[in-house]
């Protein structure tokens, strides 16, 4: 398809004035978008990929300034008066964002918000705009559009909100749709649906799409051309196929190699069972109380049985709200639950906090959020040795310090870091610290609750490798909770698929990935790991 270039970014620079001085987020980049094609701008967090497009749309925050050219059909958007720009934004170029939960105004109905850009740009009357809005809702496959027009955003799921966002963006038949991480905040099955929808709409309407993403899977499946960004610069560009087959720049190679690989062998059949749950059940009570009426009972974990052997990794996968984190916490007796839980040869089903305390150092938990789970006012040394004060009070200060040094070495951090504070570390380093905090107690079982989800792919891979090494060195057992199937596949030898508090399917990793039996598992697998290339515009 030989078509004209409609958007051309030339020598674009974006600079933010911050308290620490000026920060250059984008350092003179060039990007071209031709009519009807799909361009992906790839990079890790902080690469400037979002700010590039924000600058093009004049949506930078007030301390940001863009210079250079963003030419749309020959006119520079950066220097255009606002009234002119508003005839392009939302009409010729429109944008959808990463945060479907907050990108719609919570105070107005879907219909109201959908009709607004239609009326504004096309000057349609109320009833005509309404018709048009209904048509758009049908276009993005929102069920029961008549009723949905009267709904408020909070009454819809994330996936549906993103569909509404897409409908709004397409309301005026734009030339270019900029999609800024449009699926990152969504569950994998929903991600696939949204991507399919975008592909379908592109075929129907023929607009160009600019994908801003860190997800190479999306790029591989959808993009015609790719720009790889790093620290505000485009380090490589080219046709998607060629770039994937033969990456030139070291950074691109690293990104491509960052997909987690390898598998874990199952433990020997006679390995002892360390942690066992039988018919574990967790019920949350919502509402009720004084004059409040009947409470709502939510069965977050519904009679689940699980046996974790020594040196085994069980991956628990499922979408948000499936109860996987709750199950992990219940097994560690951090949440009240029904059913039987055994640790080694002890029944801990009824153990209260006091009874659990001597066992805690053998049962550790690592959280998803490496920012929120470390106290900002404690040094790293204090953070990781805090557990020793409780579990091995006999240790002297010097011995504790020695243990901190060992633990930090073990997770690949410089032991001298122990006098510094959490904010001085990157996300990946903080996750290492959180792991060191668990490891210093020499645990037998570690529950890893989405330990890599908040991290960039290349960092994820390092954490996965670290966790594997620690497991091999110490014969650890992991309960690995994640919605990221690629990471689970590399980490776990046994997998439990959860949906709405129940086990949908379980089995050895090979089996689950090789031949999933249940429809739900198949959807999940297809959504996540579809390596067949699926071109939007061919």
């Amino acid at each position, binding site marked *: 398809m030989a078509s004209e270039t409609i958007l051309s970014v030339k020598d674009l620079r974006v600079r933010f004035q911050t308290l620490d001085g000026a920060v250059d987020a984008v350092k003179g980049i060039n990007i071209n978008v031709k009519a009807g094609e799909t361009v992906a701008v790839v990079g890790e967090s902080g690469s400037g990929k979002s700010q590039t497009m924000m600058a093009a749309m004049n949506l930078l925050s007030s301390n940001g300034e863009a210079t250079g050219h963003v030419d749309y059909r020959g006119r520079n958007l950066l220097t255009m008066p606002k009234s002119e720009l508003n005839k392009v934004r*939302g009409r010729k170029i*429109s944008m959808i964002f990463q*945060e479907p939960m907050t990108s719609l*105004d919570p105070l107005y109905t879907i219909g109201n918000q959908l009709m607004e850009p239609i009326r504004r740009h096309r000057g349609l009357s109320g009833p005509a705009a309404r018709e048009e809005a209904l048509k758009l809702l049908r276009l993005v496959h929102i069920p029961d559009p008549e009723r949905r027009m009267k709904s408020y955003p909070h009454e819809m799921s994330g996936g549906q909100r993103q569909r509404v966002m897409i409908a709004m963006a397409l309301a005026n038949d734009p030339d270019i749709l900029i999609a800024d991480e449009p699926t990152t905040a969504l569950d994998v099955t929903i991600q696939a649906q949204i991507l399919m929808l975008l592909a379908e709409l592109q075929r129907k309407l023929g607009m160009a799409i600019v994908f801003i993403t860190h997800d190479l899977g999306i790029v591989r499946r959808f993009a015609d051309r790719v720009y790889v960004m790093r620290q505000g610069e485009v380090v490589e560009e080219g046709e998607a196929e060629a770039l994937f087959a033969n990456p030139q720049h070291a950074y691109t190679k690293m990104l491509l190699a960052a997909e987690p690989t390898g598998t874990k062998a199952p433990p020997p059949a006679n390995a002892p069972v360390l942690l066992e749950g039988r018919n574990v059940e967790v019920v949350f009570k919502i509402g009720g109380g004084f004059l409040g009426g009947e409470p709502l009972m939510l069965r977050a974990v519904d009679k689940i049985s699980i046996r974790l052997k020594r040196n085994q990794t069980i991956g628990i996968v499922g979408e948000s709200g499936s109860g996987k984190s709750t199950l992990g916490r219940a097994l560690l007796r951090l949440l009240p639950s029904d059913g039987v839980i055994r640790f080694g040869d002890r029944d801990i089903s009824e153990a209260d906090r006091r009874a659990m305390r001597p066992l805690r150092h053998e049962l550790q938990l690592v959280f998803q959020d490496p920012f929120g789970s470390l106290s900002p006012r404690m040094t790293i040394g204090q953070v990781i040795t805090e557990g020793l004060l409780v579990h091995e009070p006999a240790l002297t200060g010097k011995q504790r310090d020695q243990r901190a040094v060992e633990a930090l070495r073990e997770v690949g951090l410089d032991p001298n870091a122990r006098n510094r504070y959490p904010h001085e570390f990157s996300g990946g380093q903080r996750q290492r610290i959180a792991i060191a905090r668990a490891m210093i107690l020499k645990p037998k079982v570690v529950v890893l609750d989405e330990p890599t989800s908040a991290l960039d792919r290349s960092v994820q891979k390092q954490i996965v490798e670290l966790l594997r090494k620690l497991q091999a060195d110490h014969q650890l057992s992991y309960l690995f909770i994640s919605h990221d199937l690629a990471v689970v596949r590399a980490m776990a030898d046994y997998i439990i698929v959860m949906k709405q508090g129940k086990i949908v399917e379980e089995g050895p990793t090979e089996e689950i990935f090789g031949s999933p039996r249940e429809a739900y598992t198949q959807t999940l697998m297809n959504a996540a790991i579809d390596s067949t290339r699926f071109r939007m515009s061919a």
Partner: protein
Amino acid sequence: MLRYVFRRLLTAIPTLFVIVTVAFFLIRVAPGGPFNQERGLSPEIKANLEAQFGLNDPLWLQYVHYLGNLLRGNFGPSYNLPDFTVTELFAKGLPISIQIGTSALVLALLLGSVLGTIAALNQNRMADYSVIALATAGSTIPTFVIAPVIQLVFGLSWKLLPIGGWGDGALINKVGPVLTLALPQIAIVARLMRGSMIESLRSHHIRTARALGLSDWSVVVKHALRGAVLPIVSFTGPAAAALLTGSIIVETIFSIPGVGRYFVDAALNRDYTLVMGTVVVIAVFTIVFNLIVDLLYAVVDPRVRYD
């Protein structure tokens, strides 16, 4: 919704009961009584008076009597203004205080919101700094300074306004007291509005509205402002209760026959029934306005539902 209102009014009853009880015994703990005056009454007259008002009964009996009367809507006679019942005093003064208070509240909400919005839209620029300076001045200068200054400048020097008096509710007599009462509130509303508007303008859905090429008017007024007024709505409840029940400073300086004076005067004179009447009025206003605010909240924000 109706069920919610009913439930809230139902929970107001024990609240009021507790307030009345605490106030009743608290004021009795204070030494002295309604008839201990500087000049002193002869012991016989004092004994007579106390017997007449039942002040010699045991305290618990007085409490039971008071509650019984209160349930029948009878606040009792005022001890220090013996020609009037407490109900009559409020019937006369409360409308005046409500007029002044409502005007001040409306003025504060309108002017404060506008100033706050202007400041937010010009964050860290001249207009913003001016509003902040004004707001700081407004909330730091006490009313007992503002009131005499207004009297001095507009009343004595320029002779634009009367210096004081109610003048049977003539508009010109209200200007001074309303301004005095409103100024600190304007300052508070402006600060609140500025803060919540800045936050609202930063939210993701405002970014969406801009990306859709909507006009500035629509972005600011339709989308940002509606979200930003929520804290103002919360503020309005207690503020309305406080303003509408009168202000002793403003009413004293401008000689306005409202009810704001009663609270302090009555407490100083140990006019038990009047103190209690004032407590009940302020409590009822507070409860009712907080309920109204909660209902308004649900009107502005569809996510809030009381079912």
